[in-house]
């Protein structure tokens, strides 16, 4: 069971990880890798589809092949590797993806606030992170200077 939350609550979901499999499962909620999506019938699949996107992929170029995914899983191989923040913003702001953007990997409480701001909507916390406490981390700051996925205007247009 992943240690999974969205900004409101702890989520109880079970996914079948097909990333290492040669054949993708026919039904149920599945996780696939980007090189598997060409074999996948998104619309015909009986269940939800999550696609894992490495953080060095050009998300804009890749997007047409994954835009039907229910969940796009962006990766933090280490919490200090911040490329997925930009990928998330591009997905939300530029590409208009409205599905779930999930943070995976080294996902820690102290990064949740900015992840959410960049457009992440669910969070696979690292095992040792306390999910109950993590739910309190989305309200650390009330003032946002910049426009981002959670706020369309910069503070200077709201003052």
């Amino acid at each position, binding site marked *: 069971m992943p240690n999974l939350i969205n900004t409101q609550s702890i989520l109880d979901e079970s996914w079948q990880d097909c990333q290492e499999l040669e054949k993708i499962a026919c039904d149920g909620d599945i996780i696939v890798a980007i090189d598997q999506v060409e074999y996948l019938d998104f619309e015909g699949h009986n269940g939800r589809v999550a696609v894992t996107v490495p953080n060095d992929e050009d998300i804009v170029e890749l997007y047409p092949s994954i835009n039907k995914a229910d969940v796009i899983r962006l990766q933090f191989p280490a919490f200090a590797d911040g490329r997925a*923040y930009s990928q998330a913003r591009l997905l939300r702001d530029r590409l208009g993806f409205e599905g779930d953007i999930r943070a995976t990997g080294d996902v820690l409480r102290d990064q949740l606030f*900015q992840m959410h701001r960049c457009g992440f909507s669910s969070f696979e916390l690292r095992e040792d992170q306390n999910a109950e406490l993590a739910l309190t981390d989305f309200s*650390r700051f009330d003032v946002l200077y*910049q426009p981002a996925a959670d706020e*369309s205007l910069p503070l200077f247009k709201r*003052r």
Partner: protein
Amino acid sequence: MYVYDQYDQKIVDQRVQEFQDQVERRINGNLPEEEFRPLRLMNGLYNQLHAYMLRVAIPYGLLNTKQVRMLAHIARKYDKGFAHFTTRQNVQYNWPELEQVPNILADLASVQMHAIQTSGNCIRNTTSDEYAGVAPDELEDPRPYCEIIRQWSTFHPEFTYLPRKFKIAVTGAEKDRAAIQVHDIGLRLRKNSEGETGFEVYVGGGLGRTPVVGDVVREFLPKKDLLTYLEAILRVYNLLGRRDNKYKARIKIMLKALGRDKLAAMIENEWEHIKSSSLELTEEEIARVQDFFAPPSYETLDDLSELGDDNNQDFQRWVKQNVKPHKISGYAAVVVTLKSPDVAPGDITDSQLEKVADLADEFSFGMVRATHKQNLILADVKQKDLYTLWQALNDINCATANAGCITDMICCPGLTYCSLANAHSIPIAEEINQRFDDLDYVHDLGELRLNISGCMNACGHHHVAAIGILGVDKKGKEFYQVTIGGSSGDEASIGKILGPSFAREEIADAIENLVKTYVELRQDDEPFLETVRRIGTNPFKERLYA
């Protein structure tokens, strides 16, 4: 200066709470050091050789006297009575206790200060011309744009975990005193052919292990596009900057690898998508921030032909060296040197700070500036007050007449405090001060920037000094490499290494030798840097290694 409203204050207050919580989790064992480290760094807290070090932000170097008094209070209460000004116009404390740091931050927040993003792989304190707003050669005051950048970059959610630290500098003057060509982004206010004011944008400068002079990626950027363009640069860098090797992670390495044209094209391409977004600046916002930097109420005065006591040679020397021109007649800017021969460059005590605050209240509209050369400035002093001010500064050992001279050294803390250092720098500065203790000789040498770094991370900016000294470790012994011909000014250049490094006991002799060579070879009043540029490094090399 900029004054916080309820929004700015709330963000700083909530940061104090957040850090309080993080420190508690660290102390009670719920946050491992490895994960606490980047969090504390983003709050300016380092773990140094002997203790923690807290770096406090001074946005573009500007302080009011209430803030200066708070810095004095913190030095007294949480440190050993000292504060240390840095090359990023910030201030550092070398002895805070971890448990006390949230209290220090709360004290700072009470005077609209913080330590946000003074370290870490994020956008750091934006620096500027120390004479901003008063320089006669200024097109426009750069500080409102620095403040606009400060707000945009504070807790920018996308750019908190960049490949490496990121530094921005802005100047509005003809002469670059903000070293914009050795910053990740350098901005220079300029006019285009239609007479509109905007920015020339440099990218990819930086010091450290691989010093690089930045290149112009855009010759003219309209003001309204400032933030969208910065966001485009940062996004390109965040996505594509190298992360496999921290010594190759600055944007300067991208500039070198891709070349200026390709990097500029990538930035422009990203910018096309966001230039008309809500982040586009409005005239109202620029005017709102500019209002905070309106000139103080100057009196109508004439320039004085004679300043103070003509017969007092000490005073006249100080005027010549430490008093700078001002755009308003009858006024002058004064360098309060933190380079007296007997103290570590940039150090100041709590009582000196308080006295400087008193003098700023009395003589300079209650404002003080920190410079990247590790001095302070009182920017708006009436010329007729100079003599009284000089006497008072003399009393607190802040009137050494050496601004811009060889003994006005930039110097990192080195092995005295820093856990990264390979060698000491403060004792080297002390020794050089002893060798150059004759002020007449020092003045005769003219403008001569000498910078010292205790390791190749180059916090002492040795690459961009006329004479640079770099501490290196050779089999456990301290050695010093000498470079000459560097400059962070308009024609920025990286100093050239002269040859094998010198042992600690040899370095002061070597510098003396170098300076003597210059005196013999210079033409007229030519400064050291110009002599090197004219004749090259060989004549110096020959003499030094004869």
